[in-house]
C-alpha cells in the first residue's frame, strides 16, 4: 500500500537580511544552513493497518507525513502510494489519500461547512449520491449532520476537527494520514475520534497512519508503532512486541503484616516503605505466581498487586535510548 524508500529531507534555512536590500541580496547569494529533518527512512505499510508514527518533538514526523502526502518533495528517496510515486504524480495520487492536520484546517473560514464540502465534492469529482452516502456514514459516527449549516469560523476546536475528518473522508481515500489529530481535544472528543478511526478501519478497510503524543491514542489504536528520532527509524513493530522487547518486566507490590523486606534472587527491590515492598522482575525469568509463592513462604502476605510496564515507560525508554545512540 505505502512504501517509503530511503527517504531524506533537508531544509535549507537561510539567514536573510532585513528590508529590501536584504531581500534582493538573498535572491542572489545568501548564507544557508542545512538541517537534516529526515535522514533515510525505509518502511512499508500494508492495507488495513493502523500505524502509530511516534517520536519526540522535532524528530521529523510531520516532515515525513508531508512527504507521504505529496506536499513536500523529498530531497532524495521516494514514497510510493499504491505503487505510484506521489512526488512525481501528485495530482493523481492524492485522490487515494485523505489528510488531517490537527493544527490546521482545510475548511474554508469564510464558508459554511457544507459549502466547503461542496467545493471538495467538485474538486474530487464525487458523484452526488456517493457524497450523500459518505455524509450519512459520517453523521452516524461523528454526528456531523448538525454542523453542516455552521460557518467554520464559529466552530469549536472539536467541531472543526470533526469537520476536517469528514472533509478528508469525502472521496473515500484508501489511506488516511492524521498528524496529531487529538491535540487540544477533551476526553469526550478524543473518544469520538478514536472510535471514528477504529470504525473506518474495520468498516471501510481504510489504512491509517497517525502521529500523536497522546499515550491513550497509541494504546487504543495502534497495532503497529514506528518510532523515529532525529529523522532516523529507531523501532518498528507491534506494540506488544515492542513492549516485550523494551520493557520485558513487571512490578509486583506486596503488602506484608510486618515492616520487613524479604528478598528474592530473581527480583529487584524498587522501594520499601512501611509494610509495602515493590519488586521488579523479568517476565522471561519468573512468573508472578512463582514470585508470590516464594515470597509468601518466607513471610505471610496480606495483599499483592501486579503492574505491567506502562506505555509511558515504553515511550520514555524508547526515546531515551534513541538520544544516546
Amino acid at each position, binding site marked *: 500500500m505505502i512504501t517509503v524508500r530511503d527517504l531524506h529531507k533537508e531544509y535549507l534555512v*537561510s539567514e*536573510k537580511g532585513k*528590508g*529590501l536590500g536584504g*531581500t*534582493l541580496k*538573498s*535572491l542572489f547569494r545568501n548564507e544557508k544552513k542545512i538541517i537534516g529533518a529526515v535522514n533515510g527512512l525505509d518502511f512499508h505499510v500494508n492495507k488495513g493497518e493502523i500505524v502509530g508514527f511516534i517520536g519526540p518533538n522535532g524528530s521529523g514526523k*510531520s516532515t515525513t507525513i*508531508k512527504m507521504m*502526502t*505529496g*506536499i*513536500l*518533495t523529498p530531497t532524495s528517496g521516494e514514497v510510493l502510494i499504491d505503487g505510484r510515486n506521489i*512526488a512525481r504524480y*501528485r*495530482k*493523481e495520487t*492524492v*485522490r487515494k*489519500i485523505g*489528510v488531517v*492536520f490537527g*493544527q*490546521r*484546517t*482545510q475548511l474554508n473560514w*469564510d*464558508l459554511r461547512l457544507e*459549502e466547503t464540502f461542496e*467545493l*471538495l465534492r*467538485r*474538486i*474530487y*469529482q464525487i458523484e452526488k449520491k456517493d457524497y450523500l452516502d459518505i455524509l450519512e456514514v459520517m453523521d452516524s459516527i461523528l454526528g456531523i449532520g448538525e454542523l453542516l449549516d455552521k460557518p467554520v469560523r464559529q466552530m469549536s476546536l472539536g467541531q472543526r476537527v470533526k469537520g476536517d475528518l469528514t472533509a478528508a473522508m469525502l472521496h473515500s481515500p484508501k489511506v488516511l494520514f492524521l*498528524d*496529531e489529530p487529538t491535540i487540544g481535544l477533551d476526553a469526550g472528543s478524543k473518544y469520538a475520534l478514536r472510535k471514528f478511526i477504529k470504525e473506518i478501519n474495520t468498516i471501510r478497510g481504510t489504512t491509517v497512519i497517525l502521529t500523536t503524543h497522546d499515550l491513550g491514542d497509541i494504546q487504543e489504536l495502534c497495532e503497529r508503532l514506528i518510532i523515529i528520532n532525529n529523522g532516523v527509524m529507531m523501532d518498528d513493530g507491534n506494540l506488544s512486541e515492542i513492549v516485550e522487547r523494551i520493557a520485558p518486566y513487571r512490578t509486583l507490590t506486596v503488602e506484608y503484616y510486618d515492616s520487613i523486606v524479604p528478598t528474592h534472587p530473581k527480583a529487584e527491590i524498587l522501594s520499601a516503605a512501611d509494610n509495602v515492598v515493590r519488586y521488579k522482575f523479568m517476565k522471561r525469568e519468573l512468573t508472578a505466581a512463582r514470585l508470590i509463592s516464594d515470597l509468601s513462604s518466607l513471610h505471610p502476605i496480606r495483599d499483592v498487586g501486579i503492574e505491567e510496564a506502562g506505555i509511558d515507560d515504553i515511550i520514555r525508554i524508547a526515546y531515551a535510548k534513541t538520544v544516546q545512540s
Partner: protein
Amino acid sequence: MFSSSFRKYLFICKTRIIRSFTYRFDVFGNILMQTIVMVTTAFFWKALFQDETFRNGITADNMMTYTIMSSVLSVLFTTGVERRIQESVEKGSIAIDLMRPVNVFGMFFAEDLGNLIALLFQNLLPILLLGSLLIKVPTIVSVSAIPMFAVSVILSMAINWLTAAIFGMWAFTAISMDALFQVKKHLIRLLSGSIIPIWFFPKWLAGILNALPFVYIYQLPLDIYIGSASNEEIQGRMLIQLIWVLILAALFYLFSKKSLKKVLVQGG
C-alpha cells in the same frame, strides 16, 4: 461541453465570485482612489496640452481618453496570484492547496478570474462611469479597431498574469517577497505606459522599453484605442506581444514545476 476536470476550476472560480461579493468591503475606497488619480492625471494632460497637438497628432482630448482607459485596464490587470502564494506560504496553508488533486496554478488562475469577474462590476463599471461623467466619454477611435483592441487586451492580460505568477514563484521558497513585489508593481506602472505614454520618453529609452514585455501590457491596447499608430505598426507590435506571451508561457511552464518542488511549508 466542458471536460469534467475543467469543471472543478470553473467551480473554484464561481466560489470566488460569490465570496468577492459577500466579503469585499474595500470597494469604495478603491474606486475613490482610482478616480482621484484618474481625474488629476486627465486634467494635468489638459493643462499641459492646451490646444496644441503632439507630433503624432495626439490632442488633449486623446490623452483624456487614454487616461480613462488606462484606469479601466488597470482593473483588468488586477492579479492576486503573488499575494496568494506569499500568504499561503506564510501561513503554511499551501500544504492544504497541495494535498488536493488540483493543478495549483490552475486554481490560482481560476481564483483570479473569479475576482476579476466580481471586479468588473465592483470597479470597472463605476470607474468607466465616473470617468465619463467627470472627464469625458472615452470613445474608441473607430468601430473597426474594436476587435484588435479586444485581442490585444486579452494578450495583455496574459502577459500581466504570467509575469505575476512567475514573480510569485519566488515566494514559494522564501517567506517575504513583499518588497520585491512592490518594486515590480511600480516598475510596471512606470515602464508600461500606463501613466505616461512612452512616446513622451526619449527615443533611446523608448527603444529599450519596446524590447521589454511591459509596454505590451498597457501601451499597445491604449494606442489601438485612441488610434495613435498606423495599422501596420500595430500589427507588428501585436506580433511582438504574442511572442512575449509565448516566451512567458514557456518560462512559466518551466519554472512552475521546479518551484513546486521547493515549496516551503511553515509550521508543524
